[in-house]
């Protein structure tokens, strides 16, 4: 039975629960907007990375670097789209 529950995944799961709880602190502890955003950005991206590496096995195949490269390129483009738009519409209009 225990071979069905590998340590790595269990630790990953616990860690992701902890991150969720940390994010919830933003709500329950009534942090200020700036503090809250810092917490959210950190927890969300760490959580995403966790899923990517632990659960999605992104690093296991021969194409490891192509896959990481592709995903990080896309994340960069996504951030550029989000922040570019925010710059245009919210911060400089």
């Amino acid at each position, binding site marked *: 039975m225990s071979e069905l529950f590998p340590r790595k995944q269990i630790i990953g799961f616990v860690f992701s629960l902890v991150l969720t709880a940390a994010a919830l602190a933003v709500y329950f502890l009534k942090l200020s907007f700036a503090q809250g955003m810092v917490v959210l950005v950190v927890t969300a991206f760490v959580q995403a990375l966790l899923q990517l590496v632990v659960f999605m096995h992104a690093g296991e195949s021969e194409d490891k670097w*192509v896959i990481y490269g592709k995903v990080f*390129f896309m994340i960069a483009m996504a951030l550029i789209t989000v922040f570019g738009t925010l*710059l245009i519409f919210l*911060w400089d*209009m």
Partner: protein
Amino acid sequence: MEFFERFAIPNPSLAIYASMVAIGLTVVAIIAGLTYFKKWGYLWREWLTTVDHKRIGIMYLLSALIMLFRGGVDAIMLRAQLAVPDNKLLDPQHYNEVFSTHGVIMVMFMAMPFIFAFMNYVVPLQIGARDVAFPRLNALSFWLFFFGAMLFNISFVIGGSPDAGWTSYFPLAGNDFSQHVGTNYYMIAIQISGIGSLMTGINMITTIMKMRAPGMTLMKMPMFTWSVLVTNLIIVTVFPVITVALAMGTMDRLFGTHFFATTNGGMDMLWANLFWVWGHPEVYILILPAFGIYSEIISTFAGRNLYGYKSMVASMVIISALSCMVWAHHFFTMGQGAVANSFFSITTMMIAVPTGVKIFNWLFTLWKGKIRFTVPMLYSLGFIPLFVIGGMTGVMLAMSAADYQYHNTMFLVAHFHNTIIPGVVFAMLAGLTYYWPKMFGFMLNERIGKWSFWTLTIGFCLAFFPMYITGLDGQARRMYTYSEATGYGPLNMVSFVGAGVMAISFALIVYNVYYSVRYSPRNIGADPWDARSLEWATHTPVPEYNFAVEPQVASSEGFWDAKKKGHALFPGKVEKIHMPNNSGVPFIMGAIFFVLGFSLVFSLWIPAILSLIGILACMALRSFEQDHGRYISVKEIEETETKLRGAK
């Protein structure tokens, strides 16, 4: 009766009725012809169900040429209307419809499939692969494109054409100002073919990353393959953006949401923003494969390897990232502040740098080369100076403060035609002439080809250079007429003449095809141009399995090495080859998408839901089906090979 009223044309004219009759007659003629010559089975077995990348490439090519014709007719109408002041040839509504469909068709349904035609046909050959990674998905991509294009094209006989420009800015494109279904067609037809493009992107990236011949490392890929890889990287990045934008636009028009409305918190500028997040990279999706084709042609006909291979690759990769950071230069005048405008101004100007690097590399490739002035080479040589002009005017537009003057004038129109025609269209025609012998087994006539090159170039200069001047004088784009007093008349007349000369050039190309089908010699061998990369190392016509033995390369010019340096290109033995089976599902799915799109355009919910179920059923079918393809035996391969070798 009431039900059918919605399909009527809101703004009819004699020309539209005439085209209805013409379309009707053509359809009848095609059906009758197929039946008479008993070609239905052939059509279904060999083309509609094919998953062969070469045939799919040829179907893309044919569609692109047909769309070039449709877009071209639109263009002539536009120029004719503007040829003299206060002209009454087209009324404002028709003028709007014509420039809108002209733009969409040329970008989405002419340039894109033209590029996909070469990607499909050439890339697997160039990397020594048997097919693309997902042949069936490839067929689906094609049929989605095809039915999307058909859906868009029927708009002008059923329900009315879109009339809000190829950019379809809101609130003009919203229900309040575009009341008939034209803009629905825009939203949905582009959506359908866009999904196809996205799938092509996934397919091509996988093919190029995972299926290259042994020895072909990334830095030993031919330049066209590199350009296709980078292009598809951009496709995969930005097509999801237009998917979302179009979905939101569709919801605004069909479901009464207020994304881009001017009430209830809606923001019309958000559409412009999302459109250009896709739209600017889109123009690089068009130009990068063109750069790839020029690179192949220039090095072949200069008889030299490409100068600065690494910097070519680097500049394309930089362009791919930068092209996603410049979009706001299309709306400098929209009201954002100086910080945002300066940022986008600078990134835009930065793109000119890698582009310049490429121009110099081509020049250095030509330097001291033994240049052969064939038709493809003429297009490539014409491209360099003309494109530089287009790029320089681009940098003028990139200065945000100055753009307040240029924006939405004929100057802008001149800029982008100056990049797209010598950049993309010349490349497509060059590629057409260059790859024609590989595709069809005979060459296009060189003499007629040179005539079409020169008429096209002269026609282009006559048609578009005057617009720089009228634009600076203040002639606005998308205005259906102007008064005598503005003084724009004579230069617009010149443009009209230029457009006519370009039309002659395209007629010459059609004539050239006809002439060459009849008179060109057929025993041209596999390598009529004395070329350098792998696609020329297999037979003409290309057997369905492409290469009997997997090629092995040691540089980006494997075939040249084999010809000149005794490199052993095919060291292996013939083994049985695995091939995918044909399938009718992609075609059927495409057709259902057409029905879905049509139903959505007219808000016919029941057929829409039924076709949605049909699409899901096709996907389920695909999931449960067990199709492991088939093998071509060694004996069969050897027979084909002997036959093809004899045919040389």
